[in-house]
């Protein structure tokens, strides 16, 4: 992806972030919502399901980039993009959930139909179905969670940072 090889990466951290933000807004427009798990970063361009969302920040970390997206509901989503340009994880935190059908894409049905724990208490999700991991917690008015693809997590990424 050209964005990843931008000269901005060679500048100071602050300049880099600002430049990336400008590039992203230019590339994606101000009314983007979320990209989709397992699909290219540019899927944000085609997403119009949740209009009025906006990128709060985009940050390069070691081995991946994270976009922080503010939904109009108040919920914040973070999308984690691997160097190959694909979204390998999404995370959310806020009063209500984002559109997970949109965010999980082809993996949504796997998540929605996963066997439920016999110890389910409406507070916890810990699902692993093949390559897909979904973990969620919290309670009414404060829900958080994340989904990632095991095989797509770039090497050297600490899973604990994906939230």
């Amino acid at each position, binding site marked *: 992806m050209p964005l990843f090889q931008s000269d901005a990466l060679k500048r100071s951290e602050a300049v880099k972030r600002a430049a990336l933000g400008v590039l992203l807004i230019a590339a994606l427009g101000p009314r983007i919502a979320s990209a989709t798990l397992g699909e290219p970063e540019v899927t944000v361009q085609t997403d119009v399901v949740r209009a009025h969302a906006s990128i709060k920040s985009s940050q390069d970390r070691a081995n991946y980039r994270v976009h922080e997206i503010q939904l109009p509901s108040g919920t914040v989503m973070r999308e984690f993009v691997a160097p190959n340009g694909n979204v390998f994880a999404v995370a959310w935190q806020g009063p209500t959930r984002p559109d997970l059908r949109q965010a999980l894409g082809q993996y949504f049905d796997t998540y929605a139909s996963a066997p*439920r724990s016999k110890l389910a208490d409406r507070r916890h999700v810990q699902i692993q179905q093949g390559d897909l991991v979904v973990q969620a917690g919290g309670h*009414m008015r404060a829900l958080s969670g994340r989904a990632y693809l095991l095989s797509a997590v770039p090497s050297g990424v600490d899973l604990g940072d994906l939230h």
Partner: protein
Amino acid sequence: MVSMRALRSGLVLALALSATACGGGGGGGVGVGPPPPPPPASNVASVTIDQGPLNASVNMLFASVTVCVPGSTANCQTIDHIQVDTGSYGLRILAPVLTLTLPVETLANGNSLVECTQFVDGYSWGPVVSADVQIAGETAHSLPVQVIGDTRFTNIPTNCSSTGGTQEDTVATFGANGILGIGPFQLDCGDCDTVATHGLYYACATTCTETTVPTNLQMPNPITHFAADNNGAIIVLPSVAAGGAANVGGSLIFGIDTQANNQSGTQTVLTVDGNAEFPITFNGQTLANSFIDSGSNGIYFNDSSISKCVAPPNDPTSQIVNFYCPPNTLSFGLSIQGMNGVMANNLTFNVGNAQTMLNSNFDAFPQLAGTNPNPGSFDYGLAFFYGRRVAVAVEGDTTSAGTGPYIAF
């Protein structure tokens, strides 16, 4: 702790003795230790931890609720096994157990108001209806109540199902006949009067669309609609034996500092943040998104040094692997910091072997613990309430001990 408090008050002591004389200890299998249940009073509902409607419940607290057609004292129904949940807001009843037809709330444009309630692991779809609701001696008139799985509204909007997880519209998927959400906020949404995009409330005619909702039609903490004793509630449960117990009984007392039986005394008051959370410090880590919650069935935290359970051979995908199974009981300490700066230090809890517990016939387990999907959270569930008297004060309401939202014990 509570018995000491009782000793300071002759009145409470007398009431406690009177309850004991009436056989207030409940059925067999109740755990040992304080506190004794208070006597029947207009603001006291009996609560139980038992196997629930599915004969499979674990650490689930239940009450009975009477609902009536608004304005009627004859068209009423008492429904048992309504989960008592300090981690949610609103009375919600599963349609299959409801024999009454309750009127659906309508918006100004005449559309029916239907909610897609979001729980962490799924969603529940059903209309907001109006009912007169009685719990113990307290009544809430024309209370917004959700009827989950109501056959009058069967088309679930995509925006609702897209929030993901399990559709929890039957007793089998919900695990209870309903839920009584009495957490420390007034409503189940902080800004649904101005924000329609949560995917919570829908205006339904032939189709359903997301909508804003006037606060008086939103799902409230039912306690706030009582004529009296409406500033919060106190849950009183006995201590439970380490290995568990069956059919534990306790009390749900409405109001805080409104009657002789709900005095704050010297309780530690911890105010909560805008998410009904506060920081808990555990193993040297301060976990900002922590909470105490009667609706959580375990103690959920992360400690990689504790042995996890192993899935049984006949159930290789069992979620038991997310629970702790130490060979010997482990003891831990923690501290809680209220948003008001008040500290609750030197609290202790034990972690037992979850598989051993679940192999028993018990349903109340003070030492059931598992991993937390949120690394920044300590979720202290119903186990926190065992052997304690825990008050939950509603936001904006004042007691002699402070102003809600707070949790005190």
